């Protein structure tokens, strides 16, 4: 799928003035029905990603960052229900779209890299064939051309000897190689948006750097928008233009990267930074975050889900609605920001 074809089918995304977002998530709420109750996994999540930009979604486990990614891809578990909000991708309403349209979109315009490189590859098919599958599914290549194009894509992601490696099975490749194949798969059709869900967990630090450089390099070269989901603040600092911090299903703060670390506005952001090891700080300089995530199955969740852990809490913090103050490019969801 070359850029011309993409532009024809997705004129909005291709010609979008830089300030019209490629992905616009507005006030998204998601619930999961489980045996022990309804989990209010996401509540009023709003994010935007623009062309050529990388948005980091950071948070600890249970913050809802992966749920958000899967919701955007419309790949949520059957037990999930989207109870509110809008997801707009390139001008198209994702929540109203039919399955056929979504299947068409995924892989071609909207793509994802998963946390475990081996889990996202079919273990019984050679990697070149898997890439060719994506190319054939979304058109643009013939059966005869597909193997060559697949090998070219493997070369693009830095796999040496790509023609031979295309015939390899995933178990013959190392973790770093498998993740590169995953990236090649995701980028095969030159999508307009790439979601990377913890793409470097389990990889060595040296490999991590190479993989991230590769992904973001390709993204910048093609004007592709990227969402990087991670719990690693360091990774987010290095590769993201702006960062959205999530806690217990809320986006608590959004800001350009430098500004977020220089002047965090939300108490959780400040504490998260304060708990992360950095050179120059001793163990005694770090502070943990008291308490733990609230039980999202409760019916009586307060408007601010951080208030049980916040040292700045005041009585009216529990009152709905949770205020979201926006100024310049920053948003903070707090009644009494720092």
């Amino acid at each position, binding site marked *: 799928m070359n850029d011309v074809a993409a532009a024809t089918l997705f004129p909005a995304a291709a010609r979008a003035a830089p300030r019209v977002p490629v992905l616009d998530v507005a006030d998204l709420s998601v619930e999961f029905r489980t045996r022990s109750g309804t989990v209010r996994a996401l509540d009023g999540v709003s994010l935007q990603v623009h062309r050529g930009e990388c948005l980091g979604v950071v948070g600890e486990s249970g913050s809802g960052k992966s749920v958000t990614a899967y919701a955007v891809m419309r790949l949520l578990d059957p037990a999930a229900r989207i109870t509110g909000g809008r997801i707009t991708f390139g001008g198209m309403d994702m929540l109203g779209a039919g399955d056929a349209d979504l299947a068409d979109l995924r892989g071609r315009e909207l793509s994802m890299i998963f946390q475990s490189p081996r889990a996202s590859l079919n273990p019984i098919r050679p990697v070149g064939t898997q890439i060719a599958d994506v190319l054939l599914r979304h058109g643009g290549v013939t059966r005869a051309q597909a193997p060559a194009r697949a090998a070219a894509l493997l070369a693009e992601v830095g796999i040496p000897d790509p023609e031979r490696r295309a015939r390899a099975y995933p178990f013959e490749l190392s973790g770093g190689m498998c993740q590169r194949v995953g990236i090649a798969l995701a980028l095969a059709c030159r999508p307009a948006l790439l979601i990377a869900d913890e793409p470097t967990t389990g990889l060595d630090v040296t490999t991590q750097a190479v993989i991230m*450089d590769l992904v973001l390099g390709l993204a910048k070269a093609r004007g592709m928008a990227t969402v990087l989901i991670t719990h690693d*603040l360091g990774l987010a*600092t*290095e590769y993201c233009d702006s960062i959205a911090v999530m806690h217990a299903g809320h986006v608590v703060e959004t800001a350009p990267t430098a500004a977020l*670390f220089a002047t965090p506005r939300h108490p959780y952001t400040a504490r*998260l930074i304060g708990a992360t090891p950095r050179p120059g700080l001793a163990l005694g300089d*770090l502070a943990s975050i008291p308490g733990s995530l609230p039980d999202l199955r409760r019916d009586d969740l307060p408007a601010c889900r951080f208030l049980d852990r916040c040292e700045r809490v005041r009585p009216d913090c529990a009152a709905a609605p949770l205020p979201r103050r926006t100024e310049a490019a920053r948003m903070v969801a707090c009644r009494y920001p720092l």
Partner: protein
Amino acid sequence: MNDAPLLEVAALQKRFPIGGGGLLARRAPGLLHAVEDVSFTLRAGETLGLVGESGCGKSTLARLLARLLDPSGGSIRLRGEEIGGVAAQRFGASPRRADIQMVFQDAEGSINLRHSAFEAIARPLRRLRGLAGPALHGKVTATATLCGLPAELLPRFPHQLSGGQKARVGIARAVATEPALLVLDEPTSALDVSVQVVILDLLKSLQARTGAAYIFVSHDLNVVRLLCDRVLVMYLGRVVEEGPAGDLFTAPAHPYTRALVGAVSVPGRPRAAERVRLAGEPRSPIDPDPNACRFHGRCPIGQDRCARTVPPVHALPGGRRVACHFPLTDGALAAA
């Protein structure tokens, strides 16, 4: 206070046979050189960090030191007594078993799902210290309290505990017998950053209290910096650099250490303009060339000599050692 080292490791080696072998083998099995010629000493109260990529041998080394694996060569001496000779299977009966314990990365996997927290902590005490009844109960409760586990959590099973609580159970179990040496294999890498701080604090305070020596295996250099006095950097089974944590990371002498330090991302600090990038993958650890530096081929400063002779170990000021033909010593000398 006795100043003799607690642990002395000399030329420790572990090789695994791979492939071939068996009854009708045509070829001799290849040997995977997991750990090769590792030597160091450790004093009581000290924390030694082990860092390196996956496949560098740090986990194997950790298990050799915890005597879960038998070395193929070399010696391990605990308080002067050689413990490498006893087979791992029989080490459980040795009186030294209680002196060396281990904390695992996956706290959940390290607790039998059918055992309560109490049972998990009680087992080493029952077997190694022969405690029973009220004495056992008292010791388990005391250890749990020491590790920040409230008594009401003790009857719970692993699936009823949070990640941080499970980590505490793993630590409580390891310190219950008051070991002199504690091997920690990535104890916090599965934990959220806020929980990590608390667990690291706990480990530090336990060490201050008991005077135990720690061997801390981790891939996260930022965490290693927090807790470790000295660090061993490993690559494909060999120690490539050793030194005090602070100096080693600010002014690495080995090109691999330099690449490792350069690859670490720091929150709030934008990417350095020039960063050493390591191309390719590590070489195979099976039957490596005995006459070449194992880092050759990926090393940014590699030369002919590196392919022909094993690098010698240079001693640098400040208690540092480097195994390289061309150590980057300018910064190292300045830092010492």
